């Protein structure tokens, strides 16, 4: 198992490489969800404003 983690002496390049990829993947999910949530909030505010203006 320690053979696996040492990656033939390239561990300090291979693992940061996969680690950075994981960070980018996680950021994509987080940022996309946040932007959708913001858009939904903005849309419901617009809808609420339109409803309060009409008699």
């Amino acid at each position, binding site marked *: 198992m320690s053979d*696996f983690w040492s*990656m*033939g*002496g*390239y561990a300090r*390049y*291979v693992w*940061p*490489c*996969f680690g*950075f*990829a994981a960070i*980018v*993947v996680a*950021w*994509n*999910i987080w*940022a*996309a*969800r946040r*932007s*959708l949530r*913001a*858009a*939904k909030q*903005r*849309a*419901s505010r*617009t*809808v609420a404003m*339109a409803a309060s203006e009409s008699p």
Partner: protein
Amino acid sequence: MWTWFYKLASPPYVYDVAARLIPWLFGVAALTIGYGLIDGLGIAPPDYQQGEAFRMIYVHVPAAILSVTIYTLMAVASAVALIWRIKVGHAVAAASAPIGASFTLMTLVTGSLWGKPMWGTYWAWDPRLTSELILLFLYAGVMSLRAAFEDPARGDRAAALLSVVGVVNVPIVHFSVVWWNSLHQGSTIVTLEGPKMPGSMLWPLLSMWLGFMLFYGAVLCIRVQGEVLNRERQSAWVREAVRS
């Protein structure tokens, strides 16, 4: 024959389809990336020249392919939006830009981590590396141009124009290793003689590539929903969508 095209131009239809696709895209992406990681990191044999370091290919190459594919799709969506005045095109382009930029950054970082042990340097002003860096700047330019206008519709048009013009960089990235002397190696997967790589190394790579594409699709669907809502706030269907 054109009905699918008209449907794809309809914001409520796109909003609905995107919502339904998300779990499937994430699910299959997780399976293919999971298989690719296990096989690529644990089972595929080490390279005869690069040893275990070659395993960085399993994130670097899919990210690199995605960085140019997303740019191309963004440019096509922008062109469709400009030519036929289809708002959904702008929504798809706006949703693609941050995802493409993140995968371009992933390509540059994973590539430089691979470059250090193989070439002895994290960075060189090499044609392939430089054109990929320009791709990152193009994404950044498209995103900031869209945000720079008071009127979102004008921001959309300006960003679309830059996206379409910037697409000249895509063949430059692709052919840079052929046209100029580059540290970067040439294509190994798609060549006239077929893949220059044994199946034991190739299958996990193809699986990772498919997984990354599906992951882009899933994140795109989430972002497209938001971009469509931003552009359609005043319409009746949004009232229904927000209420539910």
